[in-house]
Each structure stands twice: as structure tokens, then as C-alpha cells.
């Protein structure tokens, strides 16, 4: 990871031109969950007792937080311990935009550097915020495009029925009783807009875990009347790839990732991404 981070860091510094810089910034953003503008205050030091100081640790005063997960308590003025990608890459007094991942959360925050952008000095916060936001949008679009490409079918539509899934029994496997049982359900979706692999008016069957168990907490659940744009994948999870609808055997689909279920309005964005080279 650190070799990769160092390469990205090098890429970030070495390519001229706004477009290329934006691409390398997107690569940094993609790997980062905590991004901030900060000033290096100490080298070879730490701000929290949980991390041993080394030639790769620096203390950075946070000047402005650009991105962070909601649970993380990090505000301007905090001192963050950063494990740098390369020893000696940062000197005291340097201000930069830091692209990082969370490492240790205790009395303070310790992060691992993915890369940093020295930028102009001082860094103009508004410019950095806008640049990171643009890069995040690029990353999100690229992720969504990859999901679309992997999907067998993309539709905008409405859930007209939810029913328990009747899975073809595996002959040699008795039913298991476990708290992690997915309790497969089937949502029947009336397609209003066939964006990929389907046509308006079709009805498709999507399997989803109805279980409230922790193992399935991130998987989308469907409810009658729900409208949305759905990225559907052929069912390779339940072991029973087909189902019945109106007396016909049809393929069953799944939508197990949170990106697989978008708002109805996202159909326009999805179409645009499909057309985008």
C-alpha cells in the first residue's frame, strides 16, 4: 500500500497541466477518507500517545477539513499525527492538502498519508475544496460507471410486489438455521425505463435479503411502491438463478450493493455515464 501511495504521490507532483493534475488528484481522493489542508508543525513526532514517533511520523495542524466521515471528530486547529508515505518527504512549516486514511482513533486522530499536494502557499481553501469536490465527483462517476458496466440490467421503475423467495432446494443440503440467514425476498419491479438490457413494460424479479441480521445491514431492502433506478445483477448468490413470474420461468436478479439502488432521478445521470466514453 505504501509503495502504491508513494507512486501516486510522485504522480501527483510530477505531471503538469490542470487535466492531468485533476486525474491524479482523483486517484488520491479515491483512496482517501480524510482529506484536509494542514501545516506541518513537527517532524519525527506524534500528537497522540498511541503512536510511537518515527522518521515517518509528522504532526500536522489542521487548517481546514475538506472531507471526513461523520463519526470522526476533526476540526480546524486540531493536531493530527500523519504517517507519511516516505520518510523525509515533509518539512516543518509546509502547508499542503493531505489525502489520508484513518489509522488510529483515540484521544486524537492518527492517519496514514496516501499523498499530499503542496499547491500554492498558502493554500487557498476555497480552491482546494472545489478541487477535491470535483475529484470526488469524478471518482463517484467512475465507480458508478463500473457498477453499470458490471450490471446485467439497468432499469428505472417501481416495486409493485414483494414476496418470499422460493428457492430451488439444493438436493444435498438441508436448510440451515442461523441468525445470519438472509431470508431471501423477491421484489417484482415494473420497468418504466429500460436503460440497459430491458424494455419499458417488462417485469423483473430482484432478490434481496429480508433479514435484519448484521451480516446484511448494508444490502438494499425493497418495499412496495418504492421507485428508483436499479442496477441488477444475475443472481449468483442464492444458488437458484431462476424464478417464476406469471407462470413463466425467468432469470432472477440481485441488487446487493448500496450503489445498486439509486433514486429515480438518477436515471438521467446513469444514461449520461453509459454514453460517456
Amino acid at each position, binding site marked *: 500500500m505504501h509503495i502504491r501511495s508513494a507512486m501516486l504521490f510522485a504522480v501527483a507532483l510530477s505531471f503538469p497541466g490542470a487535466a492531468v493534475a485533476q486525474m491524479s488528484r482523483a486517484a488520491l481522493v479515491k483512496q482517501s*477518507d*480524510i482529506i484536509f489542508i494542514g501545516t506541518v508543525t513537527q517532524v519525527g513526532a506524534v500528537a497522540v500517545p*498511541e503512536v510511537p514517533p518515527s522518521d515517518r511520523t509528522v504532526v500536522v495542524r489542521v487548517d481546514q477539513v475538506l472531507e471526513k*466521515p*461523520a*463519526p*470522526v*471528530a*476533526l*476540526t480546524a486547529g*486540531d493536531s493530527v499525527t500523519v504517517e507519511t508515505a516516505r520518510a523525509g518527504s515533509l518539512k516543518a512549516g509546509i502547508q499542503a492538502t493531505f489525502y489520508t*486514511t*484513518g*489509522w*488510529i*482513533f*483515540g*484521544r*486524537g*486522530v492518527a492517519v*496514514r498519508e496516501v499523498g499530499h499536494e503542496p499547491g500554492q502557499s498558502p493554500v487557498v481553501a476555497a480552491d482546494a475544496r472545489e478541487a477535491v469536490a470535483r475529484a470526488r465527483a469524478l471518482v463517484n462517476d467512475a465507480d458508478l460507471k463500473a457498477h453499470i458496466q458490471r450490471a446485467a440490467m439497468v432499469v428505472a421503475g417501481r416495486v409493485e410486489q414483494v414476496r418470499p423467495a422460493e428457492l430451488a432446494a439444493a438436493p444435498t443440503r*438441508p*436448510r*440451515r*438455521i*442461523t*441468525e*445470519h*440467514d438472509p*431470508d431471501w425476498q423477491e421484489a417484482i419491479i415494473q420497468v418504466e425505463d429500460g436503460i440497459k438490457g430491458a424494455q419499458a413494460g417488462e417485469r423483473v424479479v430482484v432478490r434481496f435479503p429480508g*433479514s*435484519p*441480521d*448484521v*451480516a*446484511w*445491514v*448494508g444490502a438494499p431492502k425493497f418495499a412496495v411502491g418504492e421507485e428508483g433506478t436499479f442496477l441488477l445483477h444475475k443472481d449468483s448468490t442464492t444458488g437458484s438463478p431462476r424464478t417464476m413470474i406469471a407462470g413463466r420461468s425467468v432469470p432472477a436478479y440481485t441488487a446487493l450493493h*448500496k450503489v445498486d439502488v439509486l433514486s429515480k432521478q438518477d436515471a438521467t445521470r446513469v444514461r449520461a455515464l453509459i454514453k460517456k466514453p
Partner: protein
Amino acid sequence: MRARVITVGVALCVACKGSEREVPKPPAKLAGVRVVDLIPVSLSGESWQDAEPFLALYASNPRLMAASAFTPNPGGSASATAPIFVSDDGGDSWTLRNTLPSQTMTADITHAVGGNPPALYAGIMKVPDFPLNELKANDLFSPATMILQGFRADIDQPFVRTSAVGNADRVYIGLNDFDAPDGRTATVDVSLDGGATYTSRRIETRNTAGQNGPSIRPAVAQDHTVYVAYFGWRSNAGADVTSDVVVVRDDIGATGATPFRDLVDPSDHLPGRLVATHVTIPWSNSPTLGQERIGSTLSIAVDALHSDNVYLAWADRVGTGDIYTVHVRRSTDRGATWSSDLRTLTNATDASLAVSTTGTVGLLYQQVTGPAGASRWVTGLEQSRDGFATHQDVVLATVPATTPPFQFLPYIGDYNGLLTRGNQFLGIFSANNTPDSANFPHGVVYQRRVDFPTHRLLDGSGAPVAVSIDPFFFSVPVLP
């Protein structure tokens, strides 16, 4: 009531003298009780349901501990690792470190510490796809991901215990192995070489209803006696399972060719003592008891210095208006014979037992009390030196059972954790995290930002944070 109760946490003295009503005395507090919310200050914005906590202690360093819960990597759903909590000051403060090889969170986790040098062993159900991962960390403070030692699919509820023999750690991971033959799924993965190799030992010898219950719980004494408790599911009718409660024993640390055969039931001469037979266990994977699911509460603890003495707790439905009742029994002859119920707790779950070096048994439990609209989860620790004829009770937390609404199940956990070291019981439970002193009769310490006067959680900027479920570490002095 057959037991005389010495209530420390909840006793109120109310008496009338003529027309003057005596003011109720506040609950007596037991000195030395600590309760600490594990969420660190740097995660003050956290509002996740941190359920199903577990705890591991380092014998070599009393200040070092590891803990876990269904706590996600703060980095979000794309994270390739899941976190574990670490304390290096005896539980007063905790940090979160992302060293588990599971995407964001685990689907089950327990852990225990070996001997010398001390290594942490963990059994997890990995996200995604939920295979068993048997893991080891030689250095709890290393940023490296824990080392994968064994893995396979189709298991449930890995439960880790360890012992040390010379320089080799023995690791016992109870688990429900759905690939075991003949529906006899109760299994212990045994390693005699510090996790380098594991052998799956089947411990059920009777016919089942297609499988055993999820909970397979080992307990190890210093003389290397290993007990394992499990549910022998015999039939399954709708939401109720008819089960035996079974204990097996191995006198030489499961080092032989046919381990766990040293305790035979007199009724059928098969290995596995039937402590209770044909109990009714409600299997419910929906909110049933204070927003919690129920169906597999089981704990066993052996007196580490006197392996003849062993305690067992499980929960079932008695059928007289209870939802779920915890039972505690004891054997003083290595599991050959068992007492009747020494203690019962109605509408309770998450029973965890431990036996101190002085022979005092501790019982951690979580019980729903009060009317439906105002019900509370009461987390208590009972201690007894006389088989629960008398017991000292400490209420660690009493919190609303109806809030916050569940995000997933388990709400507070299918299990929690109780251990003992020296003159302390040390444990962990999950509960509503409202910073209200009335909810924690023996006090509570928060690391995360809170405002006690307004009973509010605060994020890093001082904005309010929604109430959620947090893990709480505790220590309680063993009865003198």
C-alpha cells in the same frame, strides 16, 4: 424467593414513621466499580449500533486489553479492514485500530490471548460472504492486518478460548459447522501449536434436528481440562426448538485422538452430559425481547484452579408468561452431576459466567424490566460464593429498552463478555449511550464528547449526535 439477595445497586429503603415519610435512601454504591464507554473522543460523531461486544485480557500485562463489537471502520463501506479496540491503561481509555481482514465490519467476532509471548487469537466471520477466519496478532499495536491462519465457509458463531502449555498456545474455537456430517454440527476447532494448524473436532454424538444450536462454548482450566457446552437441538416446530443442554469434557486439553469423550451421560452412555433435556428455546430473528432477538444464549465457566467446579447458564422459555429465562446450574464433580437451577432470571439474555481464583462466580446478564411502554434494559453483575444462596448484585446500567430503534439485529448482542483476573471481574456489554447518570448507578466515564446536564452526545464541533448503542467496559471487585 429461595435466594436471599444482597442488593447493592437497586435496594431502596422505604419506611414510614408516623405521618413522616422517610426519604428513600439512594442506592448503595459498591466501591471500586468502573464503567467506561469505549467510543473514543476522536469518534464523538459516531451513532452506529455497536452491539455484541467481546473482551480479551493479557495475563502478561494487566493494563493491556482488546475488545470488539459490531463497530465499523470509520473510513466507511469501502474499507478493506474492520476495527478492534485496544486499551493499554487497564480499560480507562480505548483506541480503535483497523487490523481485522474484513470489509468494514465483521459478521461475528470473539478473541482471546495466548501465553508467552502473548498473542491475540480471533475468530471472525469475514465480510463479504462470511467465511470463518482464524486469525493471530503477535503484536496488538502493530498496524499490520492480523495474520490469517485458517479459513472455511459455512460456519456460525466462532467462540475463542486459549490456554498456554510451555511455549505453545492451545486455541479452542467453538463453532457451528454446517458442513459437519449427519447434522452433528457442534464443533471445536482445536490448535495445539499456536494456530499454525487446526483440527475440527465434532462433539455431538446424538441425532439432531438437522443441526445443533449456534452457541458452542469452550472453557479451559489451568490443569488443561476443557469443557464445552452446546445445544443439542432435537426437534424443531415452527418458532420453537426442543433442545438438550449438553456439556462435554476433555481431561488432557483435547490432545488425544478422540477428544471430548471424558464425560458420559448415564442415560445412554454417550459422551456429553445432558444437563437439561427437552427445553423449549424460542428461535426468533426479529425484535422479541426489548428489540433484541433470542434463541442461543449459553455460557460455561470453570474454576481455573479447581476444575471440578463448573457453572453453566443458558436461556429458554419456561412457559409461565416469560419471554426468555436464564438458568444457572453448577457441577462440583467435573460435570458428572449437576444442581437444579441455582438462579433464574426471567426476560433476560446475554448471560456470561466467570469464576474468580477464590471460587466466586460472576454472572453478567441483561434483562428487560418494567411495562412495555417504559421498559428498560438492566445490565447486572451478580456474584456468589455459595451457589447463589446469597448473591451480591450490582446494576451496571439501566437504560431505555425502546430507544434508540434497532438498526439491525442483534440489538445489543447475541452475547457479551465476562472474565476475571485477580480480585476483579472484568467485562463488556452494549447499551443505550445516553449520558444520564441515572442510567449508570455506579457512575460512568465517557471518552467521547458528552454534555451530562443536557444528556446529549456531541460531535467534534459540539453539535448534537443521535443516541445509539455503545460498548461499555466495566470492572467490579470480586467479593472479599
